[in-house]
């Protein structure tokens, strides 16, 4: 379903060359739950940006649902982000001026759904994450855990089958973090394809499979990665 082949991405920071992706290849099967684990600066965020079609690699192929992303126009990329990928960020990335319901509705606006349908789907998604009693609250009126659940609802509402979660528990206390992880587990069991990015071994272990990142390169096991 997600096929990454020989991806390269290099940044130049002053005189230094940073290999954010260095011959990275990865296959993620439908309904699989994969964790991508690595310390900060290892290139895992770049990997997630590429997988989320927020960024393009310098070279290599990325095929999402049979579509070669490199050949997509700007508008087609927007459409892929809107319909195929749900993002869950460490910073939640909700819009503060809008209620939880409106935040969840937002991707549906860009899918050009009618208002009735948008509200129906947004309500259903909030219900799924257990927040149907907080629909009209602003993000600032919600706890961190609740905000992250709104973000998950936003990803679900768009009907995407792939969820990319970048350190979803990074800004949460352990209890809310566990709640969020349980929810991700549940989504995985419901058949969503999940790519979880984290620096935390323990959290990575909850996935069906873990891929380790070091200096832009991917390894199947921690031992291989450590050898570097």
């Amino acid at each position: 379903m997600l096929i990454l082949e020989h991806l390269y991405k290099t940044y130049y920071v002053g005189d230094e060359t940073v290999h954010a992706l260095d011959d990275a290849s990865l296959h993620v099967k439908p309904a699989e739950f994969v964790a991508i684990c690595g310390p900060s600066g290892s290139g895992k965020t770049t990997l997630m940006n590429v997988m989320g079609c927020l960024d393009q690699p310098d070279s290599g192929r990325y095929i999402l649902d049979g579509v070669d992303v490199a050949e997509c126009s700007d508008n087609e990329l927007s459409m892929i982000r809107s319909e195929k990928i749900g993002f869950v960020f460490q910073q939640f990335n909700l819009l503060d001026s809008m209620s939880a319901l409106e935040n969840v509705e937002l991707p549906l606006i860009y899918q050009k759904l009618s208002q009735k349908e948008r509200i129906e789907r947004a309500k259903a998604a909030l219900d799924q994450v257990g927040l149907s009693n907080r629909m009209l609250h602003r993000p600032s009126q919600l706890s961190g855990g609740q905000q992250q659940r709104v973000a998950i609802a936003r990803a679900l509402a768009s009907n995407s089958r792939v969820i990319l979660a970048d350190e979803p528990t990074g800004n949460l206390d352990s209890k809310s973090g566990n709640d969020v992880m349980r929810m991700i587990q549940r989504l995985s069991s419901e058949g969503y394809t999940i790519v979880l990015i984290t620096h935390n071994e323990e959290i990575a272990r909850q996935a069906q499979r873990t891929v380790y990142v070091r200096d832009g390169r991917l390894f199947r096991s921690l031992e291989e990665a450590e050898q570097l």
Partner: protein
Amino acid sequence: MTMFFNSLRLAMRSTLANKMRSFLTMLGIIIGVMSVIILVSIAQSTTSSITNAISSMGSDLLTVSVTDEDITLDLDDFMTLADYDGIAGVAPYLTVSSTARSGSTYTSVSAVGVTGDYMEIAGSDLESGRGIVASDLEWRTYTAVIGSGVAGDLFESYDVIGKTFKMSGHTFTVVGLLSESGSSNDSQILIPLTTAQRIADSTAITSAYVQATSTNTVDIAQAQAEYQMLLLTGDEDSYDVYNMSELLDTLDDVMSTLSLMLGGIAAISLLVGGIGIMNIMLVSVAERTREIGIRKAIGARRSHIMMQFLIEACVLSILGGLIGLGLSALGLQIFGMIADMTIAIEWRAAIIALLFCVVIGVAFGSYPAAKASKMTPIEALQRN
């Protein structure tokens, strides 16, 4: 279309969320629209009241006046003008400035000595009573037809027929009241020409209205009047023959140039207001970088972001324009009350000003909007 209404709703909300900032941004537009509408409306109203006063006298009218003090023409000299086939009527008149008194009320007036034809030729109408007639001239009676302004000043009433007032040492009896015209005619007193000559102690007459047979023959009448005046005076520099419609055209030209100029100056302030909008939109784009990133990450296209900011700029400028329109209606009411005249909103200026606002919104909003839409999602997300 749904997209458009969503963007519109969003723009309204963001305008309301920063009320003070939105208001200050719109202030430039508000003042610009107000100055365009108010200045042009006042100029237009003034023009039309002046042209009305002139055209009520008739566009078939010529004014003949002797400018050389050494030449004295009398009534019979002027009446020779009436012999020409292009000229329908001649109304010589003699103006005497004086003070009229009734009881203890004084008012300064211009008393115009006229013949029986004067009122018809000059286009004055009677409200009540009668006009000056031939027998008044023959007997040099002390009768007067007064304007409504004079009636108000002297008698504080329009029921003036038969009342008397004193002027230049004589007691005049009011025989007629002129209809209110809204022009300087309201402060006139018409008296028999012969009586005016007696007061002035001279038979010399310096001016006359000459009526052409029709509006189409004004040019012929003018040539004939000029010819006859040359015969009478023997010097082409000692008299003037004015054509009223020429005067009207000149006035129209001057006033439309004036309102164009005023409108132009006001339009510059609208332009400045537009730059204010661009400034705020750029700030708004910078402030909402993260929002743009989030929207892009969850599927917004470039055109969606572009539309959002463009509509917001348009909402600011159109809202400012509408507020400016409302305030100028109010301002014109107040000005009208102070100046004691009715000033209608010049709708052409209002529509142009509002259209200008839309153009400003689009023109000055498109740069910030384009800037926002070109941001890549990660670049926008990384800035906090």
